[in-house]
């Protein structure tokens, strides 16, 4: 009997069996203890609580929520907030990052110094400290009564930024977003470089977008309602218009500035990785400066950047969770408040993790697709 254990294979099976048994045993004990603990606290398990109304409001949401909204709606609002601030943050951080990266590789000494200083300052201070900093600055602006006017159309105060608002419903916004995605996808399919359609695909897409916009603006509304509502100071606060809360702005600025520094380094690394010989070869073929950039340098640099960029995007998306520190109701904050209020810890943690896994795998999926599109096609394949 013991002789069997001396063989390699049998020992391997034994170790694996033990590891599996230990893991399962641990999991079982967690479940049993958690059940007992929750029973003691009188908390019913299950997802029934999602239908109950929350009893607390959040200060920023894309869909209509109030303190009477059920939990599932509040959680959706939180997830949408995370997506909104995350995607906007990624877009603006990428813009800043590209600018910084190009500045850092330019031949101009002064621009180099500016780029390097920017990166070294903002990359080396924690994101959450930067969020606190911008939030403190925004909330120390003058009160609405003494708000700073911006070209007479918007006002900046410690309550946030108010802008004139188009009178459109959430459904319209959704339709517009879906339509935009569809049109852009179609144009991208039609307008691949080198095809005959590429010349008119993009102008057509723009025209279609404009038509969709006007159509949505003119349909399904009461004719008397004004197209544009202007913010107006009434008492201690502004009424009407579109309000951007300081919590949202501060988080967005922090992500943009911090992410921009990191993405700038990725962009710089991508461009530096392009082999000099290829640029020289392009020049020898008689390509002009613009053509070298368009057809050789940028495609090669982009390929080198993409894996690091994908990681950075996922990282920044996860970093939006610090919004809770300055009171921005992102998914994490809504879940954590829900846990405090309802006590449904296990269910809500599962939803929290599920939400983030979904978002991150979504980003990973998109970036992989982009990567596959851009990868150099092997002739044999």
């Amino acid at each position, binding site marked *: 009997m013991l002789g069997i254990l001396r063989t390699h294979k049998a020992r*391997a099976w034994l*170790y*694996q069996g033990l*590891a*599996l048994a230990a*893991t399962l045993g641990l999991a079982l004990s*967690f479940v049993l*203890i*958690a059940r007992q*603990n*929750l029973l003691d606290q009188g908390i019913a398990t299950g997802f029934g609580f999602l239908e109950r109304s929350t009893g607390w409001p959040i200060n920023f949401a894309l869909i209509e929520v109030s303190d009477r909204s059920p939990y599932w709606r509040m959680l959706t609002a939180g997830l949408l907030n995370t997506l909104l601030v995350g995607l906007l943050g990624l877009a603006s951080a990428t813009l800043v990052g590209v600018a910084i990266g190009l500045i850092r590789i330019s*031949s*101009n*000494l*002064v*621009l180099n*110094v*500016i780029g390097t200083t920017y990166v*070294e*300052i903002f990359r*080396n*201070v*924690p*994101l*959450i*400290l930067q969020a*606190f*900093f911008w939030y*403190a*600055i925004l909330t*120390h602006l003058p009160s609405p009564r003494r708000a700073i006017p911006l070209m007479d159309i918007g006002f900046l105060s410690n309550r946030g930024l108010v802008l004139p608002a188009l009178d459109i419903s959430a459904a319209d916004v959704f339709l517009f977003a879906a339509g935009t995605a569809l049109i852009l996808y179609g144009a991208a399919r039609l307008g691949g470089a080198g095809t005959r359609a590429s010349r008119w695909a993009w102008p057509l897409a723009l025209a279609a977008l404009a038509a969709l916009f006007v159509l949505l603006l003119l349909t399904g509304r009461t004719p008397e309602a004004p197209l544009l509502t202007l913010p107006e100071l009434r008492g201690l606060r502004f009424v009407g218009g579109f309000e951007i809360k300081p919590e949202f702005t501060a988080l967005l600025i922090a992500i943009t500035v911090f992410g921009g520094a990191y993405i700038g380094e990725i962009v710089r690394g991508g461009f530096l990785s392009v082999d000099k010989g290829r640029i020289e070869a392009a020049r020898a073929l008689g390509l002009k400066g613009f053509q070298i950039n368009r057809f050789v340098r940028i495609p090669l640099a982009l390929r080198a950047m993409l894996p690091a960029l994908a990681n950075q995007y*996922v990282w920044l998306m*996860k*970093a939006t*969770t*610090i919004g*809770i*520190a300055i009171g921005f109701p992102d998914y*994490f904050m809504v879940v*954590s408040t829900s*846990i405090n209020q309802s006590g449904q*810890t*296990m269910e809500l*943690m599962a939803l*929290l*993790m599920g939400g*983030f*896994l979904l978002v*991150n*795998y979504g980003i990973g999926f998109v970036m992989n697709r982009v990567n596959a599109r851009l990868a150099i096609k092997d002739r044999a394949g």
Partner: protein
Amino acid sequence: MTDIAAVVSAPPKPSLLEVLRSRAFATKTDSLLTVVFLALILYLVYLALDWALFGAVWGADSADLCPQAEGACWSVVAARHRLILFGLYPYELHWRSTLACVSIVATVILSCLPYFWTARRLSALWIVGFAAYYLLMEGSPIGLEQVTTDQWGGLSLTLFLFASVVLLGMPMGLGLALARRSKLPVISLGVSILIDFIRSLPLLTTLFTAAVVVPILLPDWLHGDKIWRVIVAFALFFACYQAEVFRGGFQAIHKGQFEAGMALGLSAWRIMDKIVLPQVFRHALPGTINMVVVTFKETAIVIIIGFFDILASANAAFGTGEWAPYFLEVYAFVGLIYWVFIFSLSQYGEYLKRRMTVAAR
């Protein structure tokens, strides 16, 4: 033999004038950019200096001058720096907190010296440094007045979290990396799932789980202090990333080396210990330093789960009515502390990377 340096001399170093001509005034556009942006930089630097130095108020006793001041009111830092650095630690025992911080900083600086770059010396150094910190802060084991962890705060708490996460996370990371490479499918698959799962969640989720969920999963007597639960969870998070760094190091080692070791009749354990791991550590060094830097930065989020770290004490420092307008000064001070730590560590990492690429040529 002719001296090589005499035959092949380096190209002459360009003079400052030449550098300026080629890198700042090469073309007309270049010159314009240089002038415009130089003016912009100088203006910004002037504004910053004017705020921070020329128009500033210094000293804790001159706080009443602050409302009229043009620039910064550094009095808030002078008056509240003890709160920012040491949190709620008893005032008359601050010397212990100072020494404890010094021991952590010294540990980090000493680990940068090549002398300590063996697994044994490095672990000994970190254990000693950490023990010194703990004994000084806690006090009771060496006969000093006891100060419990809930009174620790400010910079010393931040350093404590940082040091304990790195100290615990490093061996955990190595263990996870080895387990992921294991030939036993159940173990390598299980560990892979764990690593990928934790890596795709925000750190805050992991810490929050440790703070809130773990007490539900464990019997009462196993709960431990909240701070230790959070440290273990943070270390697990660190280990999952560090395992990937180590994995990169393992991949850089040729299979032939294992085979050579076996041909010499060494046991699997000796091959690991004497041949493979030293090289893995070397290859993983830049990535490891990067992880350490990131960890230092990430400790800042423990404020969200209710710890009184340097960020929380900074918020408290201007939280009273008298100092409320001077948040900029406090954030600048705390930001500078973080910046000095993180910048010097990452510069050291860059230096090592350069040194290793030169050595590899």
